[in-house]
């Protein structure tokens, strides 16, 4: 893991406002997402963060302190 | 006192932000002239609203070329009038007061928004550029049915707008052979005279016309004399049309022998 469990939980929480407002921002550029599409995009983002977080860190240069 | 350099920078940026906010609000007031609700409306004893010149007949009045005044009385849980119509490209000054508790007069989704405090008159001038339909709502809690308090604001194209109102006084029933009258009072709340023609259509046959001049902020009654002999017995639908406004009802002509007490 590249990050502590607590840190991961907080990152997940931070994603919430981003996902919620992503469609508002996109609509400025004329891209209108439905609720389902927004949900799918959100899940993809969460998945990406999980993969990043769970990927074994190489060499342990980034110490886990938390 | 020892303040870190970064903190000094932050302090300076914060002050710029604060002064910037004050400057933009000041510019809004001085430049484009965004006026606030203030004490210009004056105060009023809620018990005297019915005697007040402005509020005894609330509604829209024409006061200048493209200038109008709208008097509104709020009370739990309605506005009087509940529907307000004004023309596009006009400047409307609203005067709103409350008969009971604190309300608001809020045009949903716009900055037309004022508190309506009993004892006070809220005065607010609004420019309407485009035609449109808006909801009016009360956004201050005013009792158990607060959520039912709403109204309507219609901004109509200038050429569809007038302040003509009709009210008609006519009997529902007449005896064959008698003459009856249909009196239509035309009121005009524009600040110029209304010169127009009043038309009565009754039954299939008769069509009567009268020219009428209604003074500014005044009213004029048009009297149509209807001869029941020409109509014959039975129900006759009639319509009075003045300046595009219509009033209609039905006149029942009876034989002299039947239904003498006017049981319409």
């Amino acid at each position, binding site marked *: 893991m590249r990050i*502590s469990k*607590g*840190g991961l*939980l*907080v990152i*997940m*929480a931070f994603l919430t*406002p981003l996902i*919620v407002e992503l*469609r*508002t921002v996109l*609509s400025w550029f004329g891209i*209108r997402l439905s609720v389902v599409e927004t949900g799918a995009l959100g899940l993809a983002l969460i998945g990406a963060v999980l993969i990043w977080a769970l990927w074994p860190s190489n060499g342990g240069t980034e110490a886990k*302190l*938390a | *006192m*020892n303040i*870190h350099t*970064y*903190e000094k920078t*932050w302090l300076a940026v*914060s002050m710029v932000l*604060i002064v910037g*906010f*004050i400057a933009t*609000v000041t510019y*809004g*007031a001085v430049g484009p002239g965004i*006026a*606030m*609700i*203030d*004490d210009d409306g004056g105060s009023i004893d*809620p018990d005297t609203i*019915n005697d007040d010149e402005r509020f005894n007949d609330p509604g829209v009045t024409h006061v200048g070329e493209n200038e109008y005044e709208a008097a509104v009385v709020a*009370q739990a849980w*309605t506005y*009087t009038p509940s529907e307000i119509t004004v023309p596009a490209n006009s400047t409307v000054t609203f005067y709103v007061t409350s008969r009971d*508790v*604190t309300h*608001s007069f*809020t045009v*949903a*989704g716009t900055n037309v928004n*004022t*508190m309506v*405090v*009993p*004892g006070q008159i809220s005065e607010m001038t609004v420019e309407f550029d485009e035609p449109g*339909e808006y*909801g009016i*709502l009360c*956004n201050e*809690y005013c*009792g*158990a049915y*607060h*959520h039912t308090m*709403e109204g*309507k604001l219609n901004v109509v194209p200038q050429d569809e707008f007038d302040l003509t109102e009709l009210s008609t006084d006519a009997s529902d029933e007449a005896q064959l052979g008698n003459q009856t009258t249909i009196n239509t009072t035309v009121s005009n709340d524009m600040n110029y005279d209304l010169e127009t023609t009043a038309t009565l259509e009754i039954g299939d046959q008769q069509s009567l016309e009268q020219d009428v001049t209604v003074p500014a902020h005044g009213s004029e009654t048009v009297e149509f004399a209807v001869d029941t002999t020409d109509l014959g017995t039975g129900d006759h639908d009639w319509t009075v049309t003045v300046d595009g406004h219509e009033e209609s009802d039905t006149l029942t002509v009876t034989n002299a022998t039947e239904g003498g007490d006017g049981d319409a």
Partner: protein
Amino acid sequence: MAMRNAYIDQFPKEARVIRAILWSSFLALTIGGTLGLIQGLHRTNVLRFIPSQDYYTVLTAHGVLLVITFTIFFLVGIFTWAVTTSLDRGVKDIRFTWGWYAIMMIGTLLVGVSILGGVVDQIPMNADVLYTFYSPFQAHPAFYVGFVLFVVGTWLAGFDWFRTWWAWKKDNPDERIPLPTFMALTTMLFWYLSSIGVAISILAFLLPWSLGIIDSVNPLLTRTLFWFFGHPVVYFWLMPAYMLWYTMLPKLSGGKLFSDPLARVVFVLFLILSTPVGIHHQYLDPGIAEGFKFIAMTNTMFLLLPSLLTAFTVVASMEHGARQRGGKGYLSWLKALPWRDPAFTGMALAGLMFAAGGFSGMINAGLSINYLVHNSWWVVGHFHLTVGTAAALTFMAASYWFIPQLTGKEIWNRSLGLVQVVLWFIGMTFMSNAMHRAGLFGMPRRTAEPQYQGFDFEPAVGTVAEIDAQVALGAALLTLSVYLFITNMVLTTIGGSTSDAIPDNTYAGTLSGPEDAPVIIDNLKLWTSIAVVLVIIAYSLPLASIIDAGGLFGPGIDPWKPSVVADPSLVLESVRGVMP
């Protein structure tokens, strides 16, 4: 057995009274939070099981229980901790402390019962007047008496702390006021100043009026007196959170407070500027000249300064803590923070959401743009970020540190605590974001059914249904979070085992200490005098012109008792009756 030095070991008597106070606070939070869920589901038309008329009773109770009872009980508890801990001496007479707590409790019960009368027929009382109790709404006298008792209790609490400080000063004549005590005292000073407004409003007008001694009140006057108190009270809720961010968060981060002098400056600014701003709640009121609104706007904008300074100091202190823990890099230090600690994470998230709430507050403060959002749901979104998160989440997070200090027991489940604070953040994100957006298209606050016959709201993006769904989801998550919190607290208190591993009762040290602050900063008399002068400048003319125009007792305003509930169709009939 290792020597444990928690608060309960140092001040066992004070710990008992603070426990009682915090439990009163938590109880108010649990009831108030549950009522919030009822409202969230009702307004959004997800689930309506009460009649819409009763919505306003629920709303009154939700407002009073959360913004008065929950927050202020927490404040008096935590300030008692702050004063005794930082002066390292107990209160002068513990019976006096129990006394003011009892007065506050009696006040709460009177207010609570009179509000409950709005839905329980057996209680012949009614106080469906919301937290602002604007006249001519008239509540049962018990509501006003209870409110006054509660405020008097807080005044006595302040006296308790001042008395403790005076005693300490006698023994330590040359020492600077310790920072937590300084914060408690400056907060109390603006509280004394501002609560005079609500005291006059109730004692001179509303209470005699509800007892039938006077016939009429001036609604604009009582309203202005309410806001004289009504804005400072929001800082009263916030100051304990600020105190915790300054004195606890740096410690929990593993470091020290960046600057003690600036912390003092911040609290002095709050003392000076909290009160002469109340008219910014009345930007849309008739009967108040534009110039007075302008003065309130200017003062409000300058009141941003202490909050902006706090944002800097708090983040700088957290970074210092992270670097002490081995954090490196421009942003990588964030990873070194103790994210597993619910007390730290909760406070950090609360501070972050307060930044968002601060931004929407800047919009509210803008005299002209305020017309777009005044009394809309936007405002509700705003204060759920401020009092509803900056204060509430900080208080809950701090409890994960305080309850062990006060009970000598370990938290029952710290991981659950972490989940709880994160859940609050997520729930509030959904709810307050949607409320802000709904306000922008004009949806009103304080409305049981914001669905109208004659028109529909038009969101710029998305639909009203999506906004409603976000609010309902957010409200459900927040209520779940409250229940997780209270469960954890109950099980800690009754089930937890006494532990020797409770950390010592200390607060954060400072990088730049009080010796760096000029002595004049501790001159409370000077700052109080300046605050009084500013209040006189901001309020004397508006109050004089309101009284001049509408009279001290108003132009014959009839009381309106919300208990008289009529059917709207009958009301419409009566309207036709009174119209000429």
